[in-house]
């Protein structure tokens, strides 16, 4: 893998969940769930379908409010300063969040602008090529396969300089090579003092990652 978009390592940060509980409709998905994540940690959230993995991630990200408990980022509840928390967050949801009518390059440039990263044309192309999208960067996204779309999302994550990655089933639709690419991406991110929380049914071996069974 040629050099990624290099950036200096992250300062030490921490994400803490304090006895979170989440209710969907009438049913309590999980209650008083606590864990702490600091620089270099990786958490693999496991559990069968419908157990509340995605709901947990949406609570951690601040999209939804927990029934009880709080999410603390660098010793401050995220509810109080959501914008500051989002500076350091990169979230990947179930859907790829790509505009079908725009090309891969346009999507990447848009996300760079949103993430306050000034990405030059060449580095963007470089980044896309690294993820195997050579000669497809100007094609509108709806012509691409699901795997290729996911690789654009990987390029977005690599380009984004955020200490905390929260990825919801990132390995879906990725072929063997894609999985290796993402594993290396995460390991490199951890080595630089970043943190990652991800869900997924595939057996993924990432150095130093611990599991959270819901």
């Amino acid at each position, binding site marked *: 893998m040629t050099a990624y978009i290099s950036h200096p390592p992250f300062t030490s940060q921490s994400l803490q969940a304090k006895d979170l509980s989440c209710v969907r409709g009438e049913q309590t998905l999980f209650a008083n769930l606590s864990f702490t994540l600091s620089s270099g940690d990786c958490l693999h959230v496991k559990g069968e379908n419908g157990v509340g993995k995605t709901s947990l991630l949406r609570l951690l990200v601040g999209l939804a*409010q927990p029934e009880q408990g709080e999410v603390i980022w660098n010793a401050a509840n995220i509810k109080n300063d959501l914008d500051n928390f989002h500076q350091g967050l990169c979230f990947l949801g179930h*859907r790829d969040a790509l*505009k079908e009518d725009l090309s891969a390059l346009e999507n990447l440039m*848009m996300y760079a602008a*949103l993430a306050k990263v000034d990405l030059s044309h060449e580095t963007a192309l470089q980044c896309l090529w690294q993820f195997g999208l050579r000669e497809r960067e100007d094609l509108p996204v709806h012509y691409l396969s699901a795997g290729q779309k996911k690789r654009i999302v990987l390029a977005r994550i690599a380009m984004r300089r955020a200490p905390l990655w929260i990825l919801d089933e990132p390995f879906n639709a990725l072929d063997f090579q894609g999985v290796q690419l993402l594993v290396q991406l995460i390991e490199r991110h951890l080595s630089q003092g970043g943190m990652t929380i991800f869900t997924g049914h595939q057996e993924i071996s990432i150095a130093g990652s611990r599991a959270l069974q819901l």
Partner: protein
Amino acid sequence: MNAFFVMVHRDLLLVMRRKSEVLTALFFFVIVTSLFPLGIGADTALLRKIAPGVIWVSALLATLLGLQRLFASDYLDGTLEQLALSPRSFVVLVLGKITAHWLVCGLPLLILAPMIGLQFDLDNASLETLLLTLLLGTPVLSLIGSIGAALTLGLRGGGALMSLLVLPLYIPVLIFGAGAVYAKSVGLDVAGHFSLLGALLILALAFAPWVSAAALRIAIE
């Protein structure tokens, strides 16, 4: 401010890629206004009298038609979540989207209005007043309409529900907009109307993006 232009640029780019959706709202405006003479008859004196009201109501409905797509596509493909979670301020991004909608659905009404004014045999003075009121009024329509679009995002039957929520809030803009043209034709002074339209615009600019952002956060919860 950069986030604002990023959003406006992206939305205009998206609209250019899929022109058909936008043109339907504008054709709707032209068709609705030309229905009235067919229904009422070609008596020009009467048409001149009802012209401001007809054009303003059609502008209201055309904006409403265009509003349904304002957040819907981003909501469906998950981009709205990313916007809410991006480091940029969500309110500015929402304001960017509303401005893009106005540039696409509001401004063209101003370009079409003179053409329709000819159909209704409007004299130049009234036409000029009409254009000025539309210039001040259509942004307010987009701003207030965005609140309705955000509240009914993802609901079945959202279109009809949105018009029930938003049309009552459009009434002051309609009254001052159409009223200004009527007052001009009767020779009254229109300064009052324009200052009130300006006040509505400032009020809408101050509150609508913030309220729409709050409503969107609830919708994507």
